[in-house]
């Protein structure tokens, strides 16, 4: 699959603040990349640069090989951006709104009519086309904005917090739409705070904190890499819990230990070799372990392990 978006050494400063610091990652066609990070991490700045609404101080972003610095208009033809907050035109119906943007993208006559019918059908807006857009619910407005971003059939979609403020039903619908778009071969970059939501649709992730990319790759890769750096383990033994706790806290590599459900939950820095050493130490210390189960790592664990919630 060809690369739809390539971020190369992107740096964006606002005065002394480095909002994005030498960020690099890429998205291929058909891929859904979850762009995750705490508030103020630089997600929206990165997305605005990718969407040509802002310019990098250093580095570049290529959309289908076209530079956001050198050819912003060329980029806009290849990209659909759904910002986290966008306005509604007063006295404008759903149909008029979409018709206006279709005209701005240069769609004429039958091509425009065909595309409008397609996006309205795809996003389920056909029954609402004569409603004023100011009277739409939040979920419907999100659909409308998504429909607008699809009008010129972009190769890459950048969705900034599209699920924010949506009820569970609307979230599921949006998730299905995003999956369908990836199925059509479009690359999708999506930021969200709802990590469970992202983990269900993303094929890859990029984790950003304080402007720096902390991890990037497929979801499985990132989780595997996180597992080699950090593990959570539940241990139960026949020995008293206090003794088990004391031993574990004295063991090198164990970061935290807390009692839970008749055992101890450990946060261990290191890979699977380090877990094997831990088991050996339990046995050698005569703790009689009866359960030693590493917890499955998910996207939320990865996020929490990689970020400290630093806000710039």
């Amino acid at each position: 699959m060809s690369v739809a978006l390539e971020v190369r050494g992107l740096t964006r400063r606002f005065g002394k603040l480095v909002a994005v610091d030498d960020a690099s990652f890429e998205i291929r066609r058909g891929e859904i990349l979850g762009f995750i990070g705490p508030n103020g991490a630089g997600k929206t700045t990165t997305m605005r640069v990718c969407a040509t609404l802002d310019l990098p101080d250093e580095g570049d972003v290529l959309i289908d090989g076209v530079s956001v610095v050198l050819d912003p208009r060329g980029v806009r033809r290849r990209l659909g951006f759904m910002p986290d907050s966008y306005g509604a035109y007063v006295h404008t119906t759903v149909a008029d709104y979409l018709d206006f943007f279709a005209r701005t993208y240069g769609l004429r006559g039958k091509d425009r009519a065909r595309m409008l019918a397609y996006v309205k059908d795809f996003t389920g807006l056909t029954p609402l086309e004569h409603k004023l857009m100011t009277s739409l619910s939040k979920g419907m407005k999100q659909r409308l904005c998504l429909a607008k971003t699809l009008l010129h059939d972009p190769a890459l979609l950048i969705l900034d917090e599209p699920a924010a403020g949506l009820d569970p039903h609307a979230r599921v619908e949006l998730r299905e739409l995003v999956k369908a778009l990836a199925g059509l071969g479009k690359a999708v970059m999506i930021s969200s705070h709802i990590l469970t939501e992202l983990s269900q649709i993303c094929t890859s992730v990029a984790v950003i904190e304080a402007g720096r990319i902390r991890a990037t790759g497929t979801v499985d890769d990132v989780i595997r890499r996180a597992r080699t750096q950090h593990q959570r383990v539940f241990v139960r033994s026949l020995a008293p819990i206090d003794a088990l706790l004391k031993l574990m806290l004295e063991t090198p590599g164990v970061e935290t230990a807390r009692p839970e459900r008749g055992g101890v939950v450990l946060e261990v820095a290191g890979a699977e070799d380090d877990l094997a050493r831990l088991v050996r130490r339990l046995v050698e210390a005569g703790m009689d372990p009866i359960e030693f189960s590493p917890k499955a790592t998910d996207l939320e664990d990865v996020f929490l392990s990689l970020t400290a919630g630093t806000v710039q």
Partner: protein
Amino acid sequence: MTLAAEQQEQVATELAPLAERLSDRLNPILVKEVRQSLRGRYFKVSFWVTLTLATMIGLGVLLVSFSSTREGASAVYGPQFFVAIFACLALATQVLVPFSAFLSMGSEWDENTFDLLVLSNLKPRQIVIGKVQSAAVQALLFYASFGPFLVFAFLLRGLDLLAIFLCLGISFVGSLLLSCLAVALSSFGQGRFARLMLMVLLAIVLVQGTFVTIAWAGQTMMIPSLLRDPDMLQGLAAAASIAAAVAAFFFAAACARLAHPEENRSTGLRVMTLVGIAVGLAWATIIDGWSVDEDVVLGAVMVGHAVLALATLFFITEPERLGRRVAAKLPKSRLVRLLATPLLPGGARGLVFFVCGSLMMSAWALGYSFIAEGRLVFTTGELDALVALPLYGVIFLGIPSALFTKRLDSLAVRGISRIVIVTGFIAAIMLPALIGFLFGLPNWADFEHPLNVFTMIHQMLRKDGHYEEARYFLVAGTLICVALNWPRLVRAAREQLQAPTAASSDA
């Protein structure tokens, strides 16, 4: 359904594809704005209120006119009725319509929709044209609805058809010019407070402009022979072309404001400033009748320098660097890059722009003298003034701006530097006068000191007073200015010459 209704529907169905094809050619902003206006309240209310007001005022004027027993009163029924109706029309097209354009542009910031327009790939130029076209359509709707009143006024007699068309044409051009101004002002006020201030300023300009149009129309209707006066026609043509240049400047200003800060926001405005000055000089030549009146020539040069200095105040305080997008679009030829210096963005290049603009005006004055009279008609004092004007400009703009050159990337510093330049200019006139007053220097106390450009130029032209002192000040000031600005000028030239082209950046 009746047969007539069926036929109507059939015609509408047949015309729909044609209308659709025609609308494909229109600016998308125009289509959107017209749809919004027709659904919104602002246009509907202002439309019906204006029509009602025009009807009532028209009837009132007719009642008063018909009740007059004065001899020959019937001859002025038409002009009186026309002026009353025209006043309503001018208020609608020159106040309400531009105001609507101002609100429309402002709503893009308020409703947070401007980013969507940028993403839609519309160029700033298309956005501004769309807004102005929408204002023009609204104005045309007003003209159409006032048609019956105007025909009625003509039938009352006493009206010159040329005068009617001229009045309507001038009010339409005025409406377009004021709409351009409204969109430009609105694009400057992205914050609510700033826009409120600009709205007050706009309201003052709109009302003033409209009253001038109404007063002119009244005079023309009452004395139609004025339109046969060649001087009047020449004045109208001059006013129209200068208005067009001003409108083009506002248009360029609005486009520059809507463009991304990294885009080239300066070249269009620099070109429009020079075009505006050139139009003014051309009219000075025509009005002078190719007989070189020194007062007209030097007056035009002085006004030209005032306009140039005002525009340069903004250009000279621009961030120094070109920006990555602008640098990538520079021509490949190094010579062309250097020749383009005065028109490219950047503070140092702003100083070069001022010098080039001044040279353009001096060249016009001298060239006009040689071509029209075959010799140099200016006295030595007048030639001194022609040299002194640009030097004063260079000193008062160049020295203070050089102090801020490294921090012009900051919007706040840019604002401060402009305030410093203006206050520095005023202080340069006031402070020596105060010093002269305190230390018993009578000439200085009377504002006859070398830093006062107005007195010095006046004395140079009259060849009296103490203007010789000004020469020392101008030489010293220019040398200091060049010394202070040399590093930024060299940096600017180096940046232009070393900037990678788009092709090499890609590589």
